[in-house]
């Protein structure tokens, strides 16, 4: 198996990646080809030309795998929470109205839980037909009405339950704020090198963290250790969620494999240019 040590992440694979603090060193070579394979060249070209990989094609409206980077300084970049929130909406769905999730909780946006009517009243609801702001009493009444609906129904059912909606961009902003406040700090605690991971790996981990919670993600210790070693191929084999749909599990695995290809391609290229 091709493995890449954390020290081998020698240069940004995309704009979100940072170099290691201790300079450029490449991990032992036994299992690696002497030069970049065609697949690795393709992966690297995709990264540098900022074209979507097979994995990202699953993500409607998502950002590219990587941004043009070769000439950029090797500074550490935090992931873009708004872009990651757009990724999440592909799987989590995004609604502007209140609905009851399968646990029986009133929810809105991209899985934004409304614990009680006060939480609902803290958001700027609008009347769908007129666009005018809703009054607190109206929000409270709608919350009570939606909370009384049975859980786990078709989204359209809840859409007809009230005429209050959130402003169009708010679901994504709420998700981005939650990523910044809760998930990205949690991921950095679990994976100290998170900000230096290739962007596809960051996206895979953010998806898993949002889906499992940071505490749930912490159970995936084999996958997390593999990420810290820079072994994203192994991470892809250890990321399977028992309760997850096959296509979401497959997409996460593909993101890790894309990260692995990027890492391998970059290493191979470095071996070519640095004899």
């Amino acid at each position, binding site marked *: 198996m091709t493995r890449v040590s954390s020290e081998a992440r020698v240069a940004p694979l995309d704009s979100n990646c940072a170099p290691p603090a201790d300079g450029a060193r490449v991990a032992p070579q036994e299992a690696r080809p002497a030069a970049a394979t065609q697949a690795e060249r393709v992966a690297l070209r995709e990264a540098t030309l900022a074209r979507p990989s097979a994995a990202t094609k699953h993500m409607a409206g998502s950002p590219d795998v990587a941004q043009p980077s070769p000439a950029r300084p090797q500074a550490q970049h935090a992931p873009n929470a708004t872009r990651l929130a757009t990724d999440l909406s592909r799987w989590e769905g995004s609604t502007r109205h209140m609905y009851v999730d399968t646990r029986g909780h009133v929810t809105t946006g991209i899985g934004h839980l409304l614990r009680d009517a006060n939480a609902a009243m803290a958001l700027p609801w609008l009347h769908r037909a007129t666009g005018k702001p809703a009054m607190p009493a109206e929000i409270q009444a709608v919350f009570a009405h939606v909370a009384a609906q049975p859980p*786990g129904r078709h989204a359209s059912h809840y859409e007809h339950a009230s005429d209050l909606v959130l402003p169009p961009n708010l679901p994504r902003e709420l998700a981005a704020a939650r990523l910044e406040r809760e998930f990205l700090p949690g991921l950095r605690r679990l994976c100290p090198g998170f900000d230096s991971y290739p962007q596809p790996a960051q996206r895979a981990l953010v998806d898993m963290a949002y889906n499992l919670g940071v505490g749930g993600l912490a159970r995936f210790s084999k996958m997390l250790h593999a990420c810290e070693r820079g072994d994203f191929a192994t991470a892809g084999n250890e990321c399977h969620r028992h*309760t997850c749909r096959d296509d979401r599990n497959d997409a996460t695995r593909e993101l890790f494999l894309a990260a692995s290809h990027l890492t391998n391609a970059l290493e191979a290229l470095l071996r070519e240019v640095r004899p």
Partner: protein
Amino acid sequence: MTTAATRAATRAARIATFVGLAASAMPAVADTGSGGVTWSRELAGPARADLEHALDLPFEDIWDMHLPRTEERRRVTSCREALALPRGFTPDDQSDMEWYAFVTMRVRCRVVEQLAKATPARTDHLGKFTLDNARLGELPAILHPLAGPRDVVARLQKASDDGVSWKKWDSSVRVVPGHGERVGVVGKNVDCFLQVLGRGDLDGDGIEDLVLLRSGGGRRGSWRSISAFVVTRRGPGQRVEVLRELN
């Protein structure tokens, strides 16, 4: 009211009942149906024939589905069609919200199908089976919703097979009030609900079985696990065991 209007009103009431619109008026436990098999009024009307009939009742919401590999398309308008749908079909709206709604519907359909085939039990070792904190010490650990990874799921399965209860697996879980027939179960990492959907002899051994819906997931993430479990107790004082998982 005319006969046609009465028929239409009855049909509308059945649809509303099946999809759970009347949930708030439901009794706290599964009601008694005819012939010793009992079920929640969320599933079907009171007559035994209502169970079979519920399989063909049109859904209020139509599900447009596709098979990602081949792009084959199907429209699902009733339980019968949902149950005939091969594995792998997914709602056209690919968000998990719709997926979980579909799974919830399919699980309920599967329960209706099983209850329609159930027979009255000769022996009942389950008793009233109120869903309270004491019950968490009896229910098998496999009811604990878990997202993974594989080795932890395997440990949970083994523990459950070895007779470990849900409460023993996770001492933090406790029952909290829910809506209608549902009771909540929350713990350090768990937030789900339980609901008795029906009772009867579902496996033909003459002993009373009970169908328990468990829906929910973790406290923090968005993941959900929706399953119905057929549970039984084979003799007095014996442990409650899961015979089958319907999902």
